[in-house]
């Protein structure tokens, strides 16, 4: 697809934001998204090409304004939802419960 992920040669995306000695993960949620994505990849409901395409289908404005693991999260939710394994509504509902519990 001719999506915004296809960035080669695009202008206007700003300076390279280099962080010296950066950690592998910048937050706990990034660790979890990374691991959940790999674990679900091993589960076998989809292949690597499908998971890349799921990330690419993150809506354009969202893709460009998201951090890397936010895009992974978007892709994973899309695959789970389309695969009939877990809907976004279920995630919304659980998140609301966690918020109410003051997690």
């Amino acid at each position, binding site marked *: *697809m*001719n999506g915004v992920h*296809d960035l*080669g*040669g695009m202008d206007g995306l700003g300076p390279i934001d280099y962080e010296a000695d950066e950690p592998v993960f910048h937050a706990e949620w990034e660790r979890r998204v990374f691991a959940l994505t790999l*674990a679900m990849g*091993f*589960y*076998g*409901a989809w*292949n*690597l*090409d*499908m998971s*890349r*395409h799921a990330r*690419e289908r993150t809506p354009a404005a969202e893709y460009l304004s998201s951090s890397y693991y936010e895009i992974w999260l978007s892709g994973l939710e899309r695959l789970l939802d389309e695969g009939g394994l877990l809907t976004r509504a279920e995630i919304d509902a659980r998140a609301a419960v966690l918020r109410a519990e003051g997690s």
Partner: protein
Amino acid sequence: MPMLSAKDVPTLLRKGGAARVAAEAPAKFAPGDRVVVRNLNPRGHTRAPRYIRCKAGTIDRDHGVFVFPDTHAHGKGPSPQHVYSVRFTAREVWGDDASPRDAIYIDLWDDYLDPA
């Protein structure tokens, strides 16, 4: 499909997920051949970036036979075919203002390419 267990993680990571396949497939091109990237604009998954489409380059290397993402991403099977490292000059891709010396090497599948 069983859930991934902790004890299986190291083995599975070491095994990896090879996209190279043992299937035989005819190679349409050989190193040194001049090729042009097709004007493809699939609505689905592809690994041919827009910046390289319709550009002419030279086959630098034949990597062998691999799964084809454009079909594999859509449950249409692996369509195994040759992948090549193709060299494009910077000027071919970006025009006469680009460096006269620099080049882009990009891995492209048989189905992306026509003879130039």
